[in-house]
């Protein structure tokens, strides 16, 4: 189990987590209490809820790919009232802060939903601004710095708990979006949601997802997301929570070194529902092995040799 010598605690703004490992939204629910002690997690993050009831996308909703999977669940939701009445009570007494993920169609609906979710039992809200903005032709809020800024500002005006902005990786310049979210008052960033992908069965010629396109997650995307964590962490002062492709403690360390303060684990839990506990134990073991007293020291401590490219280019002068 966790070595008491190593301090695994991290701070996400005003929120203290006993360790940096939490689930990714949509990849966790109270049913996992059947497979692990939820109280050992750094935080709990629930599936995105929408203000209104939604049915979700046609099946098949998942398909496997090389070192990853596609999903197009489509955020089925029973609405906010159901969430507060029926979902939240499952977590009463679990000694880990609960983060409610929210999706909405407009900045105003986002704000109203976050206001409604600023209730006891909710320690922070994760605004899934990777979802379509119907005022921008269905383009995700987080695909535009302007829409990001508007949504987060509106939310911050109404919410009474810290707001984490969950970005989409389907952008050209994630640092620009990160700065817009920070400027609008986001308390932390979650980097990132899934990469938009598609797979076709060559035998049937049919798309593997009922919804044709869906989000790619799992180890396949980790290099892309680690790069974005690195870029965002250098662009903002608020904490970055890394999310993408983490199966093991080593993968979590990679995110931390790139600049993440904490990490979210999604797809890995589908392969083993208790995967997060293994990652927490593995992080403690890693810190011990490497003489790291506080895991927070790892954040952003990738060892980049700043002179390398210069030395290399100097060689170019000498070489014919």
């Amino acid at each position, binding site marked *: 189990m966790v070595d008491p010598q190593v301090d695994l605690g991290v701070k996400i703004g005003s929120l203290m987590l006993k360790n940096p490992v939490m689930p990714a939204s*949509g*990849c*966790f*629910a109270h*049913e*996992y209490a*059947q*497979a*692990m002690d939820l109280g050992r997690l750094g935080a709990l993050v629930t*599936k995105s809820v929408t203000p209104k009831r939604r*049915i*979700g996308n*046609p*099946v*098949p*909703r*998942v*398909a*496997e*790919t*090389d*070192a*990853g*999977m596609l*999903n197009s*669940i489509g955020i*089925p939701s029973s609405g906010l009232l159901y969430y507060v009445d029926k979902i939240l009570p499952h977590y009463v007494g679990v000694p880990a802060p609960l983060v409610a993920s929210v999706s909405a169609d407009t900045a105003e609906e986002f704000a109203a939903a976050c206001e409604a979710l600023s209730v006891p039992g909710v320690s922070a809200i994760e605004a899934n601004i990777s979802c379509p903005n119907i005022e921008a032709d269905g383009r995700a809020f987080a695909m535009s710095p302007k829409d990001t800024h508007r949504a987060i500002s509106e939310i911050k005006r109404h919410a009474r708990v810290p707001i984490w902005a969950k970005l989409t990786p389907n952008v050209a310049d994630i640092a620009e979006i990160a700065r817009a979210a920070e400027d609008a008052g986001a308390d932390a960033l979650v980097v990132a949601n899934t990469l938009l992908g598609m797979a076709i069965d060559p035998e049937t010629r049919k798309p593997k997802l*009922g919804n044709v396109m869906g989000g790619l997650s*799992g180890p396949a995307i980790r290099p892309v997301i680690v790069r974005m964590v690195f870029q965002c962490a250098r662009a903002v002062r608020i904490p970055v929570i890394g999310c993408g492709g983490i199966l093991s403690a080593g993968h979590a360390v990679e995110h931390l070194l790139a600049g993440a303060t904490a990490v979210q684990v999604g*797809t890995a*839990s*589908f*392969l*083993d*529902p*208790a995967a997060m506990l293994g990652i927490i134990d593995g992080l403690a073991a890693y810190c011990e092995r490497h003489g790291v007293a506080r895991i927070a020291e790892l954040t952003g401590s990738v060892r980049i040799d700043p002179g390398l490219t210069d030395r290399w280019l100097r060689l170019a002068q000498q070489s014919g």
Partner: protein
Amino acid sequence: MKVATLACRVVEHQWVSARYKYLRLSCPAPLARHTAAGQFFQLACPVSEAQAPFLRRPMSVYGIGPEEDRIEFLYHVKGIGTRALERLRAGDALTVTGPLGTGFAFSPDWKRVLLVARGVGLATMAPLVPLAARAGVAITAVLSARAPGELMTQEFLRGAPASVHAVFDSDGSSAVERVEPLLRNLLDAERPDRVYTCGSNRLLALLQKLGAHGEVALEQQMACAMGVCLSCVRLFNEEGEKVFRRVCCEGPVFPLGAVAGEVQFG
């Protein structure tokens, strides 16, 4: 914890027909005690250069015990994952997660049950056979297959007494028009306390049409297999309304009558 991920060992692994393979595992936990007929496990099919199944594969328990660390599977070698699984040799490791899902309802007080299976559906229903046999509940089985060589009656009954009706595609006896009177007669004459089915949408629809009272085990594409990801939904009629239910945790066993017609969406 009710659900665990366990590193098991292959104890036996052999072909039972051209396309079906039998697998017996030894698990580092007394799984047999906690596993019920109709429940399933997620199998981590081995990864190789040729095939790299990423998601786990859901497989019903085909047999439970008698040793408390033993569970058995019977599976159709079909795609990437099962082709990889098939290569395991006795002594090899296999990681499984489970037991998962809600199994069949069964009461030792019943007099007779009717089992209607096709293809690999018999693997899912097989654990009902020893339950019934041990309780002295009579078994009638209607087994449907492409041809006599694929029926696997032995594998299904494993020595238990039953009244078996075999129907085949090869001689036309499995056609709906011919199975309908057979089932109608059995329901009328034997008045089974419960009907169970698995493996065929046509047989399910037929049993619904005949107003049979019982349960069906369903399948759906899964990721988490624990009710978390919402990928495995199917449509049901409940109290006059259409609702989605998660096959992995609210099922895979559902009341026969509740399954909505349009099951083959997508």
